[in-house]
């Protein structure tokens, strides 16, 4: 009987080589010399024509970074990174001066079209405003005029430094201090671009805002900085996507994202992370070392992080919420899929400070191949957080017998009135489940994809519709060849 296909041992490793975003765009670039020192930082700052305060900010961060050491507590291993062997700024040459999207290098337009993001006026995706970042610079933002009409500012952070310095100075590093951690300090010193959003009082942002990050140049790092401020009673839905070419060397992506929600404001932040993962032997791929944090500063404010982490050789990422305002709410919904030799250490921190604050954590990890998948999460209730509530659910699914799943919850409660619930499960796709679905006419791939989609349902339903369809497809594609 040819039953090999069904046994769980046969369920491993042969994952997808078809990373369709792995192409390289041939384009003339302008780069700063390899390495990191104060001169490089001055050079980057001058290329961006930054005001003095921005340069000071960078230098301060750099000097602090020099005193720090790389964190080693995450459940990931990789050779030591030589920070002097990275190019910290790389931009398409023709792009450096241009401001209008109509003047973009056609080569770049083609690149983004191939990535499924048409930027030309005619073809733009309606209902979503896009900022696109190529290596170190934003090459343009769509729908800006429509947004201006309602007072929403959506532009690259570089543009914001020039046009809205008062907002940037007020909020930059207000959530993630320069000295927060090793990669956050590095980012503050060398960040090159990212998005800036300001939604004024009482405005519901009429369309979704989205940033697409593309790494193209080799041996460069991408240091993205995103800052989103939702003023009182406002609402914004923000989506983020990312891809990179297939290369044999590892590349560093160290981003910092800060969200600020004032009274009654709500920010929904969704990510589909699909950086290049490296090949089957673990060669190449992106190191995704990211600090994402939001402050629910105002009363009754809400921040939710939804992420589908399906890429990167190594992920080190904990989108968190500081629940300061009374009655504020934070949420973290995550699906992390690892395959081959990928390593992911991801989770969240929910810090309850205000009264009657609430947080929800739903994390779904799927490990296949020889990958390592760790959920690391902290729920902290401060003495002031009377009536705080948290619900955490962390589920892991193992496919095959060489993958690894770990759950590391940290709980710290300093107020007796707090109510915390924590549930965690680890499961394996069982032979019986597969047999059941197959005996109803579904082939092995469809069966596994049905089981995995069912497993992730609580997270997928948090994503905006188009994103959720994309996420399901992405996970299916990644799993497609994971069965022998």
């Amino acid at each position, binding site marked *: *009987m040819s039953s090999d296909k069904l046994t769980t041992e046969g369920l491993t490793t042969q994952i997808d080589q078809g990373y369709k975003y792995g192409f390289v765009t041939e384009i003339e670039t302008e780069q700063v010399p390899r390495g990191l020192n104060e001169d490089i930082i001055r050079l980057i700052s001058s290329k961006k024509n930054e005001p003095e305060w921005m340069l000071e900010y960078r230098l301060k961060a750099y000097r602090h970074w020099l005193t720090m050491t790389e964190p080693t507590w995450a459940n990931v291993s990789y050779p030591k990174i030589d920070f002097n062997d990275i190019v910290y700024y790389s931009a398409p040459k023709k792009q450096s001066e241009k401001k209008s999207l109509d003047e973009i290098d056609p080569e770049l337009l083609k690149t983004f079209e191939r990535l499924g993001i048409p930027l030309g006026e005619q073809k733009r995706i309606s209902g979503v405003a896009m900022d696109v970042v190529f290596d170190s610079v934003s090459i343009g933002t769509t729908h800006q005029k429509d947004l201006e009409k309602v007072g929403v500012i959506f532009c690259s952070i570089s543009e914001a430094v020039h046009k809205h310095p008062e907002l940037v100075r007020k909020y930059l590093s207000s959530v993630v201090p320069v000295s927060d951690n090793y990669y956050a300090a590095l980012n503050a010193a060398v960040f090159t671009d990212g998005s800036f959003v300001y939604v004024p009082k009482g405005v519901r942002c009429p369309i979704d805002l989205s940033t697409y990050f593309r790494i193209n140049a080799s041996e460069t790092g991408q240091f993205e900085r995103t800052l989103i401020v939702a003023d009182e009673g406002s609402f914004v839905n923000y989506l983020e996507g990312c891809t990179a070419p297939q290369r044999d060397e590892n590349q560093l992506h160290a981003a910092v994202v800060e969200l600020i929600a004032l009274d009654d404001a709500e920010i929904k932040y969704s990510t589909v992370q699909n950086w290049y993962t490296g090949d089957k032997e673990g060669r190449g791929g992106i190191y995704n070392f990211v600090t994402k944090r939001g402050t629910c500063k105002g009363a009754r404010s809400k921040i939710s992080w939804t992420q589908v982490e399906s890429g990167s050789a190594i992920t080190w990422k904990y989108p968190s919420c500081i629940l300061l305002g009374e009655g504020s709410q934070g949420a973290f919904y995550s699906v992390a899929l690892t395959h081959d030799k990928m390593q992911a250490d991801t989770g969240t921190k929910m810090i309850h400070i205000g009264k009657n604050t609430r947080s929800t954590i739903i994390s779904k990890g799927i490990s296949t191949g020889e990958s390592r998948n760790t959920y690391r999460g902290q729920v902290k209730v401060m003495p002031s957080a009377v009536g705080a509530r948290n619900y955490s659910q962390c589920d892991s699914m193992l496919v095959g017998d060489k993958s690894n799943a770990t759950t590391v919850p940290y709980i710290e409660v300093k107020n007796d009135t707090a109510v915390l619930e924590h549930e965690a499960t680890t499961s394996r796709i069982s032979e019986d489940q597969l047999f*059941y679905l197959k005996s*109803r006419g579904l082939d092995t791939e469809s069966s596994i994809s049905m089981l995995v989609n069912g497993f992730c349902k*609580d997270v997928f339903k948090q994503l905006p519709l188009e994103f959720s369809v994309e996420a399901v497809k992405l996970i299916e594609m990644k799993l497609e060849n994971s069965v022998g």
Partner: protein
Amino acid sequence: MANLLEITNLHANVDGKPVLKGLNLKVEPGSVHAIMGPNGAGKSTLSKVIAGHPAYEVTEGSMKFEVNFKMKDLLEMEPDERARDGVFMAFQYPVEVPGVSNETFLRTSFNSISKAQGAEEMNEEQFRKFLQKKMELVSMDPKFLDRAVNTGFSGGEKKRNEILQMAVLSPRLAILDETDSGLDIDALRIVADGVNKLKSPDNAVVLITHYQRLLDYIVPDFVHVLADGKIIETGDKSLALKLEEKGYDWLLQ
């Protein structure tokens, strides 16, 4: 008439231990067979081997199934291929599939089988209408469609869900693996009604059961006694009554 299923000298192991030891069975279209026998005789093994469970290893013998007037070798086929050719097993212990709605599951299953058989696939709306009729067959509450497959279902609900799947997929060969066990008398009647309404001259039903009472509702053409991995006695429905009265001992001596 040609047989739908022909099992010849079937030997099968579970965990290296022989369970089926030279079993023969022929099933014609339009017939209902009941397989009875003491615990551990190999009844459930037989149903799993027919459906193709990977944990059951066939060491000898053959199992052929008629598809378009040709006898195909079931042993060479994956469980999904068997299903697409019209083999269906109602599970003794239906499996939970968390997060997948019963309706999505049924539609995906129906469409993958329809597609393989060259029939039209149905969209959500068409399928819902079609499904409503089938639900009535097994008196199933529509709320079950939104619930995750078998998740949190009671034993009886799971069994009824199996019969609903059978009604949706209209298999040519249905094997009911102890579908009656754990059912109260009302549920039993509903399940039996469902099966009776689905009978046709083209398909066949194999009932695996411990109890004669199911056979009061679904009347078999043949009753087989399976003991120690072989069929040791075959008769008509009166055999079941005799077994109920006398047990199996008189056959085993």
